[in-house]
């Protein structure tokens, strides 16, 4: 799910919860309001009921004739109030209680009415009726009125009390309800926020790692699992960018190759220019001086011409070696055998220059795929350079050992000769870079570099002036799939 969807989802969830809580509290408040309105009404009713009872007492105790119509008047007022506020009352107390209230009201009215009619009749029949019967009847009426009034008041005050507790319950209930809904809203909001932040930070960390590895020049497609959110598309973008970069890297390498062919051609022209010029000079000199030259001197001229052609041959041979890298015949080999063979080939030079050689060859090294002749050429180039950099009594150490990162093999050729100045270090692998004047072509390391690259290996150099130079080569171990 996309992050924006997640955020929208979380927000919608929260908004829903808030709306729900709102509805819930609105409903509660509405209820409380209704109940309160009812208790107000009930208070009014109670007040009139109380007044009715007072009038009732007046009538019965003091025989106040105006009391009964007063009560009836109040009753009808109450009745119309009840009818008016029927909806509120029903809402607050329910249909049944309303009905009951009405009924008790009706009963009271009937009792009062009968008391009234009894009173009038009593007055009218004062003479004819016996006093006792009169009294008994009045007593009964009085009792029924009192009872009905009592009932009415009790009922209404009971309901009022009930509603008061109801209101209290509702308020305290809504307090817990609101508190709960606050928690219910807060927890998911925090949890969802946390979750999204964590997931986003996780992806960002991945992206940061990828960017870092790209900035270190490791363009091989960044292995990132592509999530389905926006960061997924960022990761996709990074992947395609690094792919593009690695494509470009190949183009750059290609153009570097072209550039080095350019350097090579210019170099060749320069390099060939000198021996050609020398031959031309020798020929001109020979012709000009022919008569004054002795036989010996004439022969020497020709020897010099031959030497110059030898120089040309050397340049052309190296050039061919470079420009037409012979198809490598890779076979599975132990590197130590190649080292020993190469050393034999330069043994003569080593003896003449009086240089010591130390061999530190590790046993049990993994086999590597290599072209024996080419790798031999590399070792001979490096050994020759080391010999040329040293003076009698110096030493060369050749080491073979397992590759640093587990796989493969490392070969190190170290000398304690004059070393390479820091400003020359970046150029020693360039074509025609030489400090040996006319006696070096400057192609030895250049050709070696190409061969090692063709073997999917690497070569680099460290050096300190006066302390010697150290060339290290790394070869990958051959894999199961390689032919013997």
């Amino acid at each position: 799910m996309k992050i924006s969807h997640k955020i929208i989802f979380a927000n919608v969830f929260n908004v829903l919860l808030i709306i729900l809580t709102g509805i819930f509290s609105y409903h509660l408040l509405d209820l409380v309001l209704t109940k309160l309105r009812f208790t107000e009404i009930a208070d009014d009713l109670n007040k009139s009921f109380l007044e009715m009872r007072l009038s009732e007492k007046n009538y019965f105790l003091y025989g106040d004739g105006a009391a009964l119509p007063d009560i009836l008047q109040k009753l009808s007022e109450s009745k119309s109030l009840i009818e008016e506020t029927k909806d509120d009352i029903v809402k607050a107390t329910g249909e049944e209680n309303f009905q009951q209230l009405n009924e008790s009201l009706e009963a009271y009215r009937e009792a009062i009415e009968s008391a009234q009619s009894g009173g009038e009749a009593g007055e009218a029949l004062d003479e004819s009726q016996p006093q006792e019967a009169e009294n008994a009847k009045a007593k009964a009426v009085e009792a029924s009125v009192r009872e009905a009034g009592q009932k009415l008041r009790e009922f209404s005050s009971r309901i009022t009390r009930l509603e008061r507790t109801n209101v209290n319950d509702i308020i305290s209930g809504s307090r817990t309800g609101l508190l709960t809904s606050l928690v219910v809203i807060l927890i998911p909001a925090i949890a969802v926020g946390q979750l999204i932040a964590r997931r986003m930070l996780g992806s960002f960390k991945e992206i940061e790692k990828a960017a870092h590895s790209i900035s270190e020049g490791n363009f091989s497609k960044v292995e990132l699992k592509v999530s389905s959110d926006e960061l997924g598309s960022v990761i996709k973008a990074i992947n395609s960018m690094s792919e593009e970069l690695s494509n470009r890297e190949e183009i750059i390498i290609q153009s570097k190759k072209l550039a080095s062919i350019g350097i090579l051609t210019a170099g060749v022209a320069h390099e060939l220019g000198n021996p050609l010029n020398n031959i031309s000079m020798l020929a001109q000199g020979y012709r000009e001086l022919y008569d004054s030259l002795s036989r010996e001197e004439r022969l020497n001229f020709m020897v010099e011409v031959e030497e110059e052609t030898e120089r040309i041959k050397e340049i052309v041979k190296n050039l061919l070696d470079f420009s037409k890298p012979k198809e490598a015949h890779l076979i599975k080999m132990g590197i130590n055998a190649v080292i020993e063979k190469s050393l034999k080939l330069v043994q003569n030079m080593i003896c003449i220059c009086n240089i010591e050689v130390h061999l530190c060859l590790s046993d049990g090294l993994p086999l590597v795929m290599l072209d024996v002749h080419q790798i031999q050429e590399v070792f001979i180039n490096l050994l020759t350079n080391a010999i040329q950099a040293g003076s009698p009594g110096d030493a060369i150490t050749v080491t073979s050992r397992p590759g640093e990162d587990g796989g493969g093999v490392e070969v190190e050729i170290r000398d304690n000769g004059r070393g390479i100045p820091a400003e020359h270090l970046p150029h020693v692998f360039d074509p025609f870079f030489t400090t040996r004047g006319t006696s070096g072509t400057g192609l030895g390391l250049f050709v070696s570099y190409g061969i090692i690259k063709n073997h999917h290996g690497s070569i680099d150099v460290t050096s300190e002036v006066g302390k010697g130079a150290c060339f290290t080569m790394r070869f990958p171990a051959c894999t199961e799939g390689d032919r013997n």
Partner: protein
Amino acid sequence: MANYRIMVIDDENVVGRMIKAVIEQDPEYTVETFLNATPALSRLKEEKFDVVITDLKMKGLDGMDVLRHVKQDSPGTKVIMITAFASLDSAIEAMRGKVDDFFPKPVKIKELKECIRRLLGN
């Protein structure tokens, strides 16, 4: 009879040797050869030379350095530059008007001699 002093600076010893041998056939000329610019320049401080012939591309100080020093120390001395045939046109362009003449390799010694004669005004 005038005696002209000529200096040749080239790190290929054949060049100096052949130029010297051919040109000194004419007793008017004395030729000194150097494989490096540095000793050549100090020699120039001790002695006045009429013509300096120098290779452009050399280890250490090169032909342009020689040209600058010579034109500074003894403006009367003529300078002939020998350049590789493949030298960049821009390098030749840079020298034009500064050197008295230049020769691409391979150098024809006879033409060089002609040029020296012309520069010396006879």
